[in-house]
């Protein structure tokens, strides 16, 4: 898996929810090779005093169009600035992406059933995984949590994918919102526990859980998966300088010592993580 540093044009950049945006970038080489769970390390255009790149997971890609989509939330200076960029402008429309970076989701060989849990923008890095499970005819279920109904910006795509996926049959995605405006009220961990229990009760336990979202969510879901004896992976976010494994700024404590989340992760086996 060779890394490239690809000049990418910003083709679209639109608001899709509260503080949530989707940008589309033309980046054919990365679009062609990126795997579920990997990310791109991106320069923010016209932002010269902020010298570091920003890491973003790829939400979706279109190999033929040579594009990648990133779902992002405005949390600080860089993402706020990104949100102001218009695709058609002369200045500031071009970025550079290093990618595909990191170790993505590793669904065990022959996995018979999988559970995908996404909190907030964590729904995005799981979507390509869902697509590849659907493609491989692996049954999977989806639990997504967000603060409000409006923040469930990936819902249409997940609903459509699951509806089409033969292996998923009638298992529509389960949704939770913190404010109760859509689906289950409260955190999505309740839905996860239910899903785990139901699957077990039905004699078709999950063989894989993938979680992406806020660290507390990932920690709780990891513990639930461990209780049910299900192999679980999590995607960890750390501040990154190089994004290629050279600087050791992004280390994660694991039972095997400190690991670089950029290239040894971002996806780690939940059991190995020292929370």
């Amino acid at each position, binding site marked *: 898996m*060779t*890394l*490239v*540093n690809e000049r990418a044009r910003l083709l679209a950049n639109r608001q899709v929810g509260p503080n949530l945006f989707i940008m589309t970038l033309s980046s054919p080489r990365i679009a062609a090779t990126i795997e579920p769970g990997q990310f791109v390390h991106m*320069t923010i255009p016209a932002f*010269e*005093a*902020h*010298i*570091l*790149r920003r890491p973003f997971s790829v939400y979706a890609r279109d190999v033929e169009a040579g594009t990648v989509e990133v779902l992002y939330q405005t949390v600080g200076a860089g993402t706020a600035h990104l949100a102001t960029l218009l695709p058609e402008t002369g200045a500031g429309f071009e970025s*550079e992406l*290093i990618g595909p970076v990191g170790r993505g989701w590793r669904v065990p060989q022959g996995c018979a059933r999988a559970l995908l849990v996404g909190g907030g923008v964590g729904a995005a890095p799981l979507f390509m995984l869902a697509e590849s499970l659907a493609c491989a005819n692996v049954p999977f279920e989806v639990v997504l949590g967000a603060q409000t109904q409006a923040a469930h910006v990936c819902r249409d795509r997940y609903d459509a994918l699951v509806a089409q996926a033969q292996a998923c049959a009638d298992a529509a995605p389960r949704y939770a919102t913190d404010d109760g405006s859509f689906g289950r009220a409260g955190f999505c961990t309740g839905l996860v526990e239910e899903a785990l229990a139901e699957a077990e009760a039905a004699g078709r336990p999950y063989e894989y859980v993938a979680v992406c979202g806020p660290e507390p969510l990932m920690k709780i879901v990891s513990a639930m998966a461990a209780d049910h004896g299900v192999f679980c992976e999590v995607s960890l976010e*750390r*501040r*990154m*300088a*190089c*994004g*290629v*494994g*050279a*600087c*050791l*700024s*992004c*280390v*994660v404590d694991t039972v095997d*010592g*400190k690991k670089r989340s950029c*290239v040894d992760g971002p996806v780690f086996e939940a059991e190995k993580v020292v929370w």
Partner: protein
Amino acid sequence: MGNLAVNLGGLAMKNPVTVASGTFAAGREYHDFFDVSQLGAVTTKGVSLHGWEGNASPRIAETPSGMLNSIGLQNPGVEHLKECDLPWLADVGATTIVNVSGHSFDEYVQVIEALEEAPVDAYEVNISCPNVDAGGMTIGCKTASVEEVVRRCREATARPLIVKLTPNVTDITEIARAAESAGADAISLINTLLGMAIDARRRRPVLARGVGGLSGPAVKPVALRMVWECHNAVSVPLLGMGGICTGEDAVEFMLAGATAVAVGTANFMNPCAAIEVVRGIEAYCDEQRVDNVTELIGALTW
């Protein structure tokens, strides 16, 4: 095309550009982007005898035109370097500078001794490490401890010995002279400036360790000034660094007195930065009709 080769205190470099220790690992991570053996040298991450864990996270913070790091010299130890990295570097044909760290004067010497049989072209002794045999102070801040550590490293090797200075001192020339008098073949500067970043809303330092080392374009003026001061103070060659991003930046350091330069934080901004600096120096020499890049060293006029 002009001649880009330089000699840094006995280290022959095909061009004046290496990378700053700790920003390039041992080169492998950047080999996808360009052939790292095209650099004048690859400088490896600081290595200690048995390996260190480094500091808690977060370890970096972005600051205006710069960054702070408190990696804390995490490294797997000299044996790992010998087994995994140095053979790879030799394989791809890279000129190799190993950056040496220690918690004590003895440890510096032990690291060098452990490397004497390995394919290493020069040592860079990082004397900016806190908590060594010098009473809590960074050894690089006092002439006595600088002389001591350099003298002992000098006795341990006949290879080119580069001594890397910290900029957090009142008078860098005093430290440079101490290093030179104790046997350094070259002096590299600057390491990072001590700094701090605070998250106003959380009322906490951004770095877990509180303070960290400032690097990147923000520090370039300080680095250039110190290179210029040392150029006027010592006669050994200088390896200049601090915020270099482009060939033009590199030329500025050479004009101030550097024989070679290192690209550090810029690697994070652009993974091809180091090789682009080589090409930028080349382009400058072509445009300015400089036949031999050594003509630029200290060629600042007033």
